[in-house]
């Protein structure tokens, strides 16, 4: 029986910040799911804000490393999926407010 909860996994991933926008991946709504097996192997299902993201490999590596820091964790896998495609409605309200904040020029 594994004692790690989904909330703990999300909390660990929330330490990973996208350096371009300055928000963590969880509040950006990029983490779709965290599947925890009884053996404590964890599969994180996530997406990226853009398909051609030049940090793709590094971000998945940071997510894996963040989850691996949880005590008692088994093998961690990170799957990047493109369906459903990310859009701003998936982000937390504070992200939406910050990105859309300020007077738009046009």
């Amino acid at each position, binding site marked *: 029986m594994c004692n790690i909860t989904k909330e703990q996994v999300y909390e660990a991933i929330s*330490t*990973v*910040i996208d*350096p*371009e*926008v*300055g928000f963590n991946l969880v509040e950006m709504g990029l983490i779709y799911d965290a599947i925890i097996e009884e053996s404590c192997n964890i599969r994180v299902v996530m997406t990226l*804000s*853009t*398909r*051609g*993201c*030049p*940090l*793709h*490999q*590094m971000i*998945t590596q*940071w997510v894996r*490393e*963040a989850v691996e820091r949880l005590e008692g964790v088994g093998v961690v896998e990170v799957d*990047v999926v493109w369906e459903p*495609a*990310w*859009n*701003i409605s998936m*982000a937390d309200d504070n992200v*939406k407010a910050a*990105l*859309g*904040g*300020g*007077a*738009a*020029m*046009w």
Partner: protein
Amino acid sequence: MFSISKDYAPPFEMIAPFFKIGAFFYLTGVIFLLFLDPGSSYSDMNIIGWTHWFLLGFIMMIIFGAMAQLVPVVVEVGHFSVDLYLVIWPLLMAGTVIMGTGFIFLPAALPYGGLLVLTAMIIFLYDTSMTLRRVEHISLTVKTVAVANLFLLSGIVTGFVMSLAIGEGIGVDVNKWLGVHAVLVLGGYVTLTIMGLSLILLPMFGLSHGFDETPINRAFKLMIAGVLGYFFSSLFGIGWGNILFLLVMFASVSFYLQQIIIIYKTRARKENDIWAKSMFFGYGSLSFALILGILWLFIDAQKLLLGSAWFLVMGFFTFLINGHLYKIIPFLVWFKRYSPLVGKERVPMLHEMYPKREAEYEFIFSAAGVAIAGMGILFGSATLFKAGVSFLIIGAGFMFYSVAWMINYGKNKE
């Protein structure tokens, strides 16, 4: 699933020279504008010399440096041999200096400068074409990159032949081929490349999603048709064909602008940072250049042609490039100096890695300079033109400082 590994991303040391040298040619290029007469013909040797200095030394140098980073992002495979970029910038720099000064002081040197530029570009094209051969998913963007490279090859070969005509006196009608050379390089390569790259970069930085891509697909096809049509019209001496295919190219730019409006309307990120302001001014300039270009087809006035070219090169190309430098250089520096520290210590965000105040000054002075000098060209006022150029020089000084500031950010982390 596609990802860019560290093997795909070129080493920072390899591409930093492109940006440093590009900023130098930009600064010197705008200083040299003080010595040009805005009433000159487009075929004046001083104008052509300056054009090559600016387009090769600044525009092409920065595009090549950016392509070293962006080709894998756009076509989703790694470079065939990224080490080739090590020889591109020295050849391009030397060739540009010889060509730029050759036009003005020593036409006999032109073939030598032209040969160096030709060699640099063939090396670039070799890497790009071999990289494209690895692509599995042939999207319209990939096809466009391939066609744009063919246009660049045709354009530089045409240019080299013309340099032989001017420098060595071989029997080629330079006036006839000048338009073809300009259309192949500016329309066929630079504009198509910017269209392709902006389709990737604008949604990436603006967080735009789910938008219709019909206009950009039309723009790609029309630009390719327009450039090919102009080439063959010139080859067979069909005057009305040239005008028709210029209109086709203008239609392409109109669809491109429509696409840009769609992307901006669907953007999630609405902050007006230096990048957004630069894009706004750049696309405004492109719209104005388009209007002047269409007017020139009906009112054959040299000022309209030069004005259109001015807003295209100094307003559109320059602001798109400079605006993206505030994104690309911090990313490259961050990737090299800070990505290994993620999770170990606090790392800066990308928006902290450019000098905000100097960047703002660069934008204000450069935008004012482009507008004032552009009016000088259109109204035939050398005084107004030089007043605008003075603003541009101050803006270029801030740009030069900003590029150095960004490249040196976090140097103590090495």
